[in-house]
Each structure stands twice: as structure tokens, then as C-alpha cells.
């Protein structure tokens, strides 16, 4: 354990240095694409961390996490759209200000997570997986049918949100904003998981019956975790909308939820930093394979199967924990 912790600390330190230095290095090589790509990794990493809170720590296998990601993105895009069109929404003119739009995105995703979570958490096991999927599908189809916001074609954002009135066009600045927010998310989720709340959440995963007998109403703790995860995913969606300056129902497709799950497991369940690594590895492997061959699925599918079969601890566990006798 001790040794594993030291390795983790070294890895995190190295990764932090690399991530902070990345735009500078990229600039010297004249590669702006590296920054865009890295920003994407940070955002997916953030969503994966949020999903890890409920899957890895809470043991709640949500197959609909993309819904909260998408709702966050749509909130930001719709607010900007309403402002641009000059049409108020629910009596509100809309906004292009990140300090307003991003918290609102988290609020919308959090509210959705509250409602869907409260209903879903009545079930467990495979039923929970399927009902979370069902709710995500509902959101997906609603946005497909919302012609006013582009329906299936999606909704473009003419420009990025402003942050405190300042424009954030520069990809490097936007990258650092995402990096800062990801660091904040990891810090907070890390605190949550070690707190009393986290002990209850984790304990309920390990033995729900025991926790109930101790006097914990586990559903309430799970619901709060579900809402927190939804809010973080919503923030991720808001950032994504700003990065891509485009949202579409595709953000909430069930395959997207599946991809987030792959990222979490690939990185390592319940490992806090692992999901970020998992997101990075996922995107790199997928894009590399689809560059190599148009039949990338034939290679990528087995990779996913192998992860599921042989990498229960994920990349992070593989890097930090040395198995006995190995």
C-alpha cells in the first residue's frame, strides 16, 4: 500500500507538470492540435471522474451518464442561442457569460440527476443499469425531437462563452481553464470520498445490508452522490459545448454512456486519478485505431473485451499496485 501510494504521488506530480507544460511545449513545436486534443482529454477526464464517484466508489452502475453531460452542454448552448435570437426563455434573456451559464448547466444536470436518481435508486443491480439507460434515452429522444434547437442536427454556438466579461478564444487559455476546473473536481471528489459521506457511500457498495443495520439510509447518500456526479458531468458538458461550440443529441447517446464507462474501467474503478488516464488512453487508442484502418472496430472491440476480462484494476491499478507474486 505504502509503495503504491508513493508511486501514485509521483505519477500525479509528473502528470501535473506535463499537463501544465503541455501548451508551452506544443507552442514551441507549433502544434495547436495537441492543445485542442488535450483539452478534450481533460473534459472527458472530468466526466469520467464524476462517473467513477458513483460507479467506482458508490457501486451504482449508471448506464445513462451521457444524459447529464448532454444536458449541461445544451444548457450553455441554449442560453447563448436565446441571447443571440433575442428570445427570452422562461422569462430569461439567456446569457453568454460562463460565470452564469456554467453553474446553470450544473444546476440543470443536477436537477435531472435528482429526479432520475430518486426514481432509479428504488431499483438495484441490472434493473438500475437499465432504468438509468432508459432515462437517458428519454432525454436523448426529446432533444432529437426539439426542432427549435436543431433537433438531430444539433445546435451551434456562434462563439465561446465569456468569462467575467473577457473572451476566451485562445485555445491555451481555455485549456488552462479546463485544467484548473479538472484539478478542482479531482480535489473535491477526493475529499468527498475520504469524508464521512464517502465512507458511507463506499461502505454501502461493499455491504448495503450492514450499512442499513448500522442506521444509514443508504439511498439518500447514494442520491446525493448521483446528483454530485450529474452536476460535474453537466460542467463537463458545458466545457465541451464551449470547446466544440456545438452540441447535438449525439452527446447523450447510449453509446456515449458506454464510452464513459469504458474510460472509467480502463483507468481504474475508484482510483480518483485513474479515470483521467482512462479517458486519455481511450481517446488515443480509438483515434489511433481509426487512423490505422477504417475497420477500426474489429480491433477496438477486442481491446474493450480484454480490458473487461483482464484489467479489473485498470491502468492506474496496473501502474501503482504490484500484485503479490508477480
Amino acid at each position: 500500500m505504502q509503495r503504491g501510494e508513493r508511486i501514485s504521488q509521483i505519477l500525479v506530480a509528473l502528470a501535473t507538470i506535463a499537463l501544465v507544460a503541455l501548451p508551452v511545449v506544443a507552442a514551441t513545436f507549433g502544434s495547436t492540435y495537441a492543445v485542442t486534443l488535450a483539452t478534450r482529454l481533460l473534459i472527458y477526464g472530468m466526466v469520467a471522474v464524476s462517473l467513477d464517484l458513483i460507479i467506482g466508489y458508490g457501486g451504482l452502475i449508471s448506464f445513462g451518464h451521457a444524459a447529464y453531460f448532454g444536458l449541461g452542454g445544451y444548457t450553455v448552448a441554449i442560453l447563448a442561442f436565446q441571447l443571440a435570437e433575442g428570445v427570452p426563455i422562461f422569462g430569461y434573456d439567456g446569457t453568454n457569460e460562463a460565470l452564469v451559464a456554467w453553474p446553470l448547466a450544473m444546476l440543470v444536470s443536477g436537477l435531472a440527476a435528482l429526479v432520475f436518481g430518486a426514481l432509479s435508486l428504488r431499483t438495484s443491480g441490472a434493473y438500475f443499469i437499465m432504468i438509468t439507460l432508459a432515462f437517458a434515452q428519454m432525454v436523448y429522444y426529446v432533444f432529437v425531437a426539439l426542432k427549435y434547437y436543431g433537433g438531430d442536427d444539433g445546435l451551434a454556438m456562434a462563439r465561446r462563452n465569456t468569462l467575467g466579461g473577457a473572451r476566451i478564444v485562445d485555445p491555451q487559455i481555455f485549456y488552462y481553464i479546463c485544467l484548473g476546473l479538472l484539478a478542482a473536481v479531482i480535489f473535491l471528489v477526493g475529499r468527498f470520498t475520504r469524508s464521512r459521506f464517502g465512507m458511507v457511500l463506499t461502505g454501502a457498495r461493499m455491504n448495503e445490508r450492514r450499512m442499513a443495520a448500522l442506521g444509514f439510509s443508504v439511498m439518500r447518500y447514494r442520491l446525493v452522490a448521483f446528483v454530485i456526479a450529474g452536476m460535474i458531468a453537466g460542467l463537463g458538458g458545458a466545457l465541451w459545448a464551449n470547446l466544440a461550440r456545438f452540441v447535438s443529441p449525439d452527446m447523450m447517446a447510449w453509446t456515449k454512456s458506454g464510452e464513459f464507462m469504458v474510460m472509467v474501467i480502463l483507468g481504474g474503478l475508484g482510483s480518483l486519478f485513474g479515470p483521467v488516464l482512462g479517458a486519455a488512453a481511450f481517446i488515443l487508442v480509438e483515434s489511433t485505431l481509426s487512423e490505422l484502418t477504417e475497420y477500426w472496430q474489429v480491433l477496438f472491440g477486442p481491446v474493450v473485451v480484454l480490458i473487461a476480462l483482464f484489467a479489473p484494476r485498470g491502468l492506474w491499478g496496473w501502474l501503482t499496485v504490484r500484485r503479490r507474486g508477480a
Partner: protein
Amino acid sequence: MTFRTLMLAGAAAMALCGPAMAQVKIGFITTLSTPAGYLGEDARDGFKLAVDQEGGKLGGVPVEVIVEDDKLKPADGKQIAEKFLQSDKIKLFSGIIFSNVAGAVVPGILEAGGIYVSPNAGPSNFAGKGCNANYYVTSWQNDNLHESAGALAKKLGYKKMVLLAPNYQAGKDAIAGFKRLYGGEVIEEIYTALDQTDFSAEMAKIRAAKPDAVFQFHPGGQGIAFLKQWQQAGLKDQIPMVVAAPSLEQKIAAAVGDAAVGVAATTHWNTDLPNAQNKAFVEAFRKKYNRDPTVYASQGYDAALLIGAALKATGGKLDEKPFREAMLKADAKLVRGDFKFGTNQHPIQDWYEVKAVKGADGKVTLQTVGKVVEKLQDSYAKDCKL
């Protein structure tokens, strides 16, 4: 171990396509996976055929076509475009099949100073106010597909019709487009669900509504399912059907078989168009790929020919003004016949009526019946300030 080696392989692959070469690179972002993968495959193969016929050149300029699968996900398409733009320094793009992918990808390309030549999708938001000097559509503006079908329904004398389309943007555009040139009475508009594969409920409704004819827009697999079920429901011999090209192209006809026979469709290209270029194209395509080309293959081919004509005039330079001047001349003999760009850089072209017929070999193919509309231009061009 697995991941380390994979990532190394990936890094090596990325390193290989690093430095720029003297040739013109064309980023071809298209849909190769998902059920709609055959559309992108054909567009790509048509495009590549034109390049291969010139021995790796277009208009005498060496080109490298870099193809990648957008997986029918707008975000993935955008990601690929960014990589092409920023990492591979590509300026010239083509290949996108679906409007939603185009909606996400095209603005980024144009802002970065790139040029986009569409071989398929022609969404309305880039045709009117949103038109752009570096954006060309060589296929059709989306509405044209359905406008021509509306014109055909009018020509065939159908007075009362039922219209069906999926409940998303393209479906709604289809019905609006159809009505523009149809002019007759629409008894009912029925919207089907995305991914719906069983249409029995809708067909019972149509039977009850007793229209003169029906227009439906369901591209790809949905269209195949619709035609099969239409025949099984016994409606094929009772109610005539009019469709636009995406709902009945060569592959759909082959996959549906008997159920397609007798259905009327409109298209701007067909295998049997009698011009010399087309005959040569169809023959070359069959020879190279051992299958019949679809309308998507013809569009990929024509897009390549138009790019080639422009490259020839500029000597491979992609500077905005000369390239645009050359491109707009459309100085190429296209397989579809006459072609002109409108002011919004979308096509002005003829539309034909085709019918599915069963050949002596039992295969169902599309046969051209005649022209439906001549020199059709889209209704958005007037809003374009170019």
C-alpha cells in the same frame, strides 16, 4: 503491455504523417461505420476512382486523399477536422455524408481558412444567409431532393397525398421541401421515430386515409424496412409511392428486390444516364470495385472532378480568390450531365424520374424515365450575399 504497445504503434503512425509534402492533401471525413457506412464508402470510392484514373492526381496536381470515419457523430467529425487542420495542415476538405456532421464540422473548417467541397450533405443553414465563399456543394441542396419529388407527384397527377418522414430535422425539411413544388392537398403528415423499424401502425393509418399516393422519406435501412413492409401490407398495388433519391437508390433497390418495383423516385443521376462520361464512369467503377455504383459514388466522383478542374486552373494553389474563380466555372464534364453553380455555390441541375424495374436476371435496378425538373435551384440562394 497491450496498451503500451498500442500507444507506441499509434505514436509511430502519427509521426509518419507529420511533414507536409508538395502535393495537395484532401481531408475526406466521411461515415464508414454504423448502418449508414455504405454511403460514405461509396462516396469515398467514387472520389478515389477519379484520383486513381489520373494516376494519383486531380487536374494534373498530385493529391493525397486522407480518409477518416466520422462514425456519424458530429463531435468525432469535428475532432478529425481539427486534427487535419492543425496537425496535418490540410486546407481542402470533402466527404461528409450527413447534415448533422456537416453542421458541426464545416464552420470550424471555414473559420480556419479551409475550403469545403460537399459531395453529399447540403443543409439549408449554409445555403442562404449562412453561405460562404469557401463552401461548395456539388451534390444538391437538401431541399432539392424533395422538391423534385414534389414536382414528380404533381406531374403524375396525384391530388391528395399522405407524407411521411422521421421526426428529426432532415425529415421535417423533407416534408417542407416536398410541399414546395407539389401544390396538391396533403391529407396527413406522419412523423415516424428515429430508429423506428416497424411501420405497421403508420401503414394502417395510410390505408384508412385512402390517398392518391404517398411520399415517404426514410433513408438507408429505415427505407428498406418501409418498402418491404409496404409490399407485405398489400399497399404496393393499391397506393402509388413517390420518393426522393435517398429513399430509393441503387443499393436500396437491390436490397429490397420486388418490393421496390414500380416505385417512382427522383434523382439527379442514375446508372443509365446516356452521356459518355457516365458510361465510362460506371464501367470503370464496376471494374475496379466489382459492384454497381450508387448515386453517392457518382457524387464522390463528380466532386473530385470539380476539384480537379479548379486545381488545374490554379496549378494546385488553394488561395481563396483564384480557387473560387476556377471552381465556380465548374469546367468539368460531370457524370450527371449539365451542371452549374448558383450564386450560393450550390448546384443548378436537372432532376430525373426513375422507376425500379426487375431485369431478366431477377435483379431490381433503377431505370430513368425522363426529366422532371430542369435547372432546379434551391430557394435559399436569394438570401445569399456572395
